[in-house]
């Protein structure tokens, strides 16, 4: 099915989110919409999906003008959407989720589960998904949940599939698998609109690339364009994808982890007997596919995991069995993996978030009372220093873009006197400009002599930052290698194989 958008304009008050955007998606084509966060990609897709009404312009499917009043209309017309945040019910099975909204029934309105299961099996088989229709969705890994979303869209005979930042939540492996799936769908004749801001993915699967900036189409690019070309189109200036960093000036080992094991609340051994150290002035990156124990390792260091055996020592003092408060007081700065869930209180203002983990004493608290003047000065200073783009310090954190939210977290953590910085997925979901900023700050912290532990599933990030790389696989460390180790070697290690000849650092 051919999809055509003609001159779509969508305004929110004074802001023009989409300014006369036109694009054509041919049948059996993967059309990438590339743009920074806030460029207007999602607004455009919400217009397409009937969630918003366009102020101007029209949507054509096979040259017929469409008039969508809601997602139901769009679905009926053959448009399917795979949302960034899945619209699935975790306690339902795969089959139940897929049939939700158009349940097949037999006589007397009874649910025809067999038919739903059959549908799931049929579509799974067509695309080589290994999916049990009776599995509970909540138990499935994120990548597999996404396939359920895809099946859900396909089961409604979607001819145009919109993927809204589908890889934001995926591991590199799952991303690769998704790419394969997208290619299969293309072969089957489905038109795909792929929204992303990750350049590599674009170049891998796209047939056509449309770059959007500030709500306008700034140009089309071919998949052969270089990363630098695409990035500069996206942000309107040249971007350095690898940050410059000098040689590490190594000091004494600061964080020493020895024979650490973690058992999670359901009794599984998630971190298995690992040992490593981080020296002063060094960035050690924990690489690995999501879910191989990195999260739990970080939580163990931060005092967020109850069942920890082995040793974690910072500057000679043990951190095992300490409360989060004590770990923070020991000078550990923490950038959590999920900033919305763990890093920020979105209802709090920027200023309040900047003192979130510093409410125990001076300078922000005196005699049990908040020092609002001190806090305001501090927040104003950090707003400038970290280039947090907001109306002011009273803006609620929830109203900030992801990049600015992350800057708030970084500003808070880096403004304490640190003896260790732990940054988990520090740039997940950020646009190119913010990634650069965050990376620069992390390297600056290193250069000031702070030991840094970065956990990332993005190989680009690991390679850009790390002085040494520890690769985790199934709770253990496969090996610790120098920061300049080739990607293919790292890739193998992430799959659990220690390549022969790979030397430990």
């Amino acid at each position, binding site marked *: 099915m051919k999809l055509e958008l003609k001159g779509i304009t969508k305004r929110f*008050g004074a802001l023009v989110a989409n300014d006369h955007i036109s694009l054509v998606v041919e049948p059996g084509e993967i059309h990438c919409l590339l743009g920074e966060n806030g460029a207007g990609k999602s607004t455009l897709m919400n217009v397409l999906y009937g969630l918003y009404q366009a102020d101007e312009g029209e949507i054509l499917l096979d040259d017929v003008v469409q008039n969508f009043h809601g997602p139901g209309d769009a679905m009926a017309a053959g448009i399917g959407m795979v949302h960034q945040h899945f619209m699935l019910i975790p306690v339902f099975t795969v089959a139940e989720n897929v049939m939700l909204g158009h349940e097949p029934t037999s006589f007397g309105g009874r649910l025809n589960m067999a038919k739903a299961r059959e549908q799931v099996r049929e579509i799974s088989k067509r695309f080589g998904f290994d999916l049990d229709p009776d599995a509970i969705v909540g138990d499935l890994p994120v990548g597999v949940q996404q396939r359920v979303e895809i099946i859900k869209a396909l089961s409604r005979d979607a001819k145009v599939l919109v993927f809204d930042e589908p890889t934001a939540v995926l591991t590199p492996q799952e991303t690769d698998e998704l790419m394969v799936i997208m290619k299969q769908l293309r072969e089957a004749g489905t038109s795909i609109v792929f929204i992303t801001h990750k350049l590599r993915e674009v170049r891998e699967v796209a047939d056509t690339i449309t770059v959007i900036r500030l709500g306008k189409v700034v140009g089309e690019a071919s998949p052969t364009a270089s990363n630098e070309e695409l990035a500069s189109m996206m942000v309107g200036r040249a971007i350095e994808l690898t940050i410059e960093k000098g040689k590490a000036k190594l000091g004494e080992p600061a964080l020493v982890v020895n024979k650490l094991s973690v058992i999670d609340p359901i009794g599984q051994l998630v971190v298995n007997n690992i040992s490593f150290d981080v020296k002063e002035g060094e960035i050690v990156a924990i690489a690995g596919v999501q879910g191989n124990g990195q999260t739990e390792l970080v939580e163990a260091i931060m005092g967020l995991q109850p069942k920890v055996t082995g040793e974690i020592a910072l500057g000679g003092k043990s951190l095992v069995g300490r409360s989060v408060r004590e770990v923070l007081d020991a000078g550990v700065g923490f950038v959590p993996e999920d900033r919305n869930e763990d890093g920020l209180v979105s209802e709090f203002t920027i200023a309040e978030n900047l003192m979130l983990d510093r409410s125990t004493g001076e300078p922000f608290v005196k005699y049990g009372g908040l020092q609002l003047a001190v806090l305001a000065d501090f927040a104003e200073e950090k707003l400038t220093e970290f280039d947090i783009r907001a109306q002011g310090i009273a803006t609620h954190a929830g109203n900030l873009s992801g990049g600015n939210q992350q800057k708030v977290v970084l500003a808070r953590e880096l403004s304490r006197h640190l003896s260790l910085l732990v940054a988990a997925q520090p740039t997940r979901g950020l646009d190119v400009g913010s990634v650069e900023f965050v990376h620069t700050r992390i390297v600056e912290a290193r250069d000031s002599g702070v030991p840094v532990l970065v956990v990332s599933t993005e190989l680009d990030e690991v390679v850009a930052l790390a002085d040494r790389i520890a690769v985790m696989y199934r709770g253990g460390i496969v090996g610790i290698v120098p920061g300049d180790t080739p990607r293919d070697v790292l890739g193998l290690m992430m799959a659990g194989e220690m390549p022969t000849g790979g030397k430990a650092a």
Partner: protein
Amino acid sequence: MSANEPVDSQLPTIAQESPNREPGQDGTEVDPGRSRWSVAIREILNGSAMISVLAVILAIVIGGILIAVTDDTVQETAGYFFSRPGDMFSAIWNSVSGAYISLFQGSIYNFRRPGFANGIRPLMDTLTFATPLIVAGLGVALGFRAGLFNIGGRGQMLFGASAAGWVAFSFSGLPFPIHLIVAIVAGVAAGAVWGGIAGLLKATTGANEVITTIMLNYVAYYFVYWMLSTQGLLQLPGSNNPKSPAMLPSAVLPPMFGVQYSLHWGFIVAIAVTIFVWWLLNRSRLGFEFKAVGFNPNAARVAGINVPRMMTYVMLFSGALVGLAGVFQVLGTVTTGFSSGIDAGIGFDAITVALLGRSRPWGVFAAAILFGAFKAGGFAMQASQGIPVDIVLVVQSVIVLLIAAPPLVRAVFRLPKPNLLAPVKSAKSQGKKAVVTK
């Protein structure tokens, strides 16, 4: 900020006065893991002050309709409406205006009584009724702000009242201010303990405080009833009724403006408590941590805040404040001895008051006075106009209903959706950012 951005310049004030953030409308997803309760509470609390005011107005209009419909004269005149419609309109006017005038006269100032000293008495009654509601409402509101739903007001009040009452009637020999202070402290402590139990259960076992506080209400009610019917405990010696002896004069809250008015010094205490709670929530470390736990317990935990301990503290404070309402009942309102009905439904009205006041301390204060006025005026309305006091209860209930459904109020008054602010705002900042990036 340039002059061609009029929307922009207004936004900060709007944002500060009414953080109209409904979850999920500005990019932050409603996260499925968080409890439905807290989402619901937040939706209600984030409604603007305007919604509260309009809800009251709307409820009064609905009350007026009910008064008109149930009025005998109106019904009679409706029978010949088409021959003489004027009769019915004047009958409606008479009944509704009469009702609300008597409500006013019963709650604020009665012009029919001679002299200011007599005319102002209804206002004194209103403030007297409002006094326990203020502190109990603050207690519930404090819980709301920390994401906890304290429905145990009744139990906490009963325990607060019993402890204060027991000290007040049995500790003879203590001089006036000391006896009173000891009684107040005992009552507050008892309320705190009873609230704290629910907090401790939540902190240690994760038991839902909605359920535990409701159940603790029953435990408190029957326990206090048993104590009131047992000689040697709370029962008046030599009596068979489940009622306590009268409070000793040395433990009674003295009247503020002489004995002709019911208003007692508890009202001043309530004002002081309101200031304290305002400070606690907006200027103290503890309040900061309470709110952090209420908004996002995960982030609070990662930031080193001991979430279970905070929950216990919140319920201790909440219970203490509600317990103080019980103290006001026995040492201020009814000093002749109390029965197990001493809570007078204030524990539940407090929830309404906290909602109407949007859990802001001064909002709660204002809401409590409004409800005090309803209580004082309701009786006057019944006495002078023959309108059942239940109409006032209906008005109160409609207020809650409307506050719980802000979209309904917005639809009635054709207010813009508050979420329109969010996209403009965030989009604005993005637009700005983009300009700078260029």
